């Protein structure tokens, strides 16, 4: 589903963010990309979004390829992906509901469908009761849940999470991770970049360790394949 083949990327002619990276992520998989700040984690995610393109090598996301991607096709790809960030990227002047509906508005969906799907996504993250709140009225964890609802509203096949727990307290982190596991259990692949190694070690999923722009380790998922896809409903503990 996602395939990086010998991908290299250099910024400003000197900083090599990625060096000859190759890996694949399968449909329905949950994988972490870990490494220190500036190691190239976010660049990987941005390449999947086709927000950045490799200098060498190719990135394939479903049927889209970086070497023949037309500019006009990028929005079509992004509507099939969900993405969340450390800083949530919610619009401060819109309510939680409006923030979620926004992702559907841009696709030109009908208002009936927008309402139905936005409410479904808010229910899924458990935030329907706060739909009229503005982002500043929510805790960090709740804001990230709103961002997750926005990411889910288009039924993505892949959810990209760039340091999603970076601005969230420990209790909120647990909730967010549980939510991501539930989403994954329903079939959506999750690729999460983080530098919180402790958090990652406590979870059984695949870990791609990036250092200096290279993948130095690819630790496979510790769950049997069937079990990895059937963790819905289980309670996550990080103790």
């Amino acid at each position, binding site marked *: 589903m996602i395939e990086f083949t010998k991908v290299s990327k250099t910024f400003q002619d000197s900083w090599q963010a990625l060096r000859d990276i190759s890996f694949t992520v399968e449909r329905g998989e949950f994988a972490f990309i870990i490494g220190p700040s500036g190691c190239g984690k976010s660049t990987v995610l941005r390449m999947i979004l086709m927000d950045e393109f490799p200098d060498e090598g190719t990135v394939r996301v479903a049927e889209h390829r970086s070497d023949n991607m037309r500019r006009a096709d990028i929005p079509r790809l992004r509507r099939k992906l969900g993405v969340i960030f450390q800083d949530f990227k919610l*619009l401060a002047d819109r309510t939680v509901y409006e923030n979620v509906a926004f992702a559907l508005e841009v696709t030109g969906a009908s208002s009936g469908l927008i309402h139905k799907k936005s409410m479904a996504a808010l229910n899924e993250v458990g935030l329907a009761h706060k739909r009229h709140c503005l982002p500043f009225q929510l805790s960090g964890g709740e804001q990230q849940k709103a961002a997750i609802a926005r990411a889910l509203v288009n039924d993505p096949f892949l959810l990209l999470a760039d340091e999603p727990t970076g601005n969230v307290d420990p209790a909120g982190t647990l909730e967010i991770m549980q939510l991501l596991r539930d989403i994954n259990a329903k079939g959506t692949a999750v690729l999460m970049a983080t530098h919180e190694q402790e958090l990652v070690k406590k979870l059984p999923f695949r870990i791609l360790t990036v250092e200096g722009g290279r993948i130095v380790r690819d630790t496979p998922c510790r769950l049997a394949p069937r079990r990895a896809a059937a963790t819905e409903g289980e309670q996550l503990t990080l103790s």
Partner: protein
Amino acid sequence: MRPGYYWKEALAGMRRAKLMSLLSVSTISAALFLLGAFLLVTINFRSAVSSFKDKFEIQAFLAETCDQHQALVAGSYIREIPGVADAVYISKEEALRRFRAELADKADLLQALETNPLPRSYRVILTPDQRDPEAMARIAEKVQRIPGIEDTEYGRDWLGRFYRLGRLLVMLDVALLLVVSLASVIVIFNTIQLTLYARRQAIEIMRLVGATDGFIRRPFLLEGMLHGLAGTLAGTAVLYLFYRLLSANFGQVTFFTAREFAVLLGFGVWLGLAGSWIAVRRFLRRLPGGG
């Protein structure tokens, strides 16, 4: 297409940057007022010209020595010149009668004359496309060469001055059009650019969730067009007040026809569109992943 969304966003953009929007609309209205005023001067000048254009004719005076036969031949020669619609013979008596009519209440002065001093002439009527100084000079020269014709008269000097003034006005209009266009586009560009920067985060998010550039662009283009529309309406409204004031005092002044007004309005809207289009295009290209 979500027209409701575009309108909502465009109006919200104007509300958010009230002062800049006001500045932008005022600049366009001042610019369009100036342009409109010059266009009105030109329109009025041209309508004045066309109202006496049908009086543009050449007087061809026959020599005293020329007999009646020669006079008739001269008339037929004149009629053969390309650009001449007709040549009407004016006898000495007819010339005097007309002169008397022109003098009106001072016609008594002519009683002192013992003989009729006025020459016979041909009133050379030109086809409408030949009623300009160059064509008239060319035709007058040909008439002058016909045997029996002693002199021609067509108000060469004032006609030339009149046309030069007309051309100068058109040149001024064109120059002003360029200056006004440039100034308006720059002002709208700046205003929309500010709105774009204020909405930068929203635009980035829109891109992330799969909005096309067209979807992102449309509310800003609409906002620019609204600035152009509001500015042109305000500018022409002020111009109309001036027109009413002028026509009350001087009379016989024309304002824009509905069609001309629609063109001016369209031009203002187009200026808004151009300014905002450049701003959005530049902004989207500079965003990360903007291509």
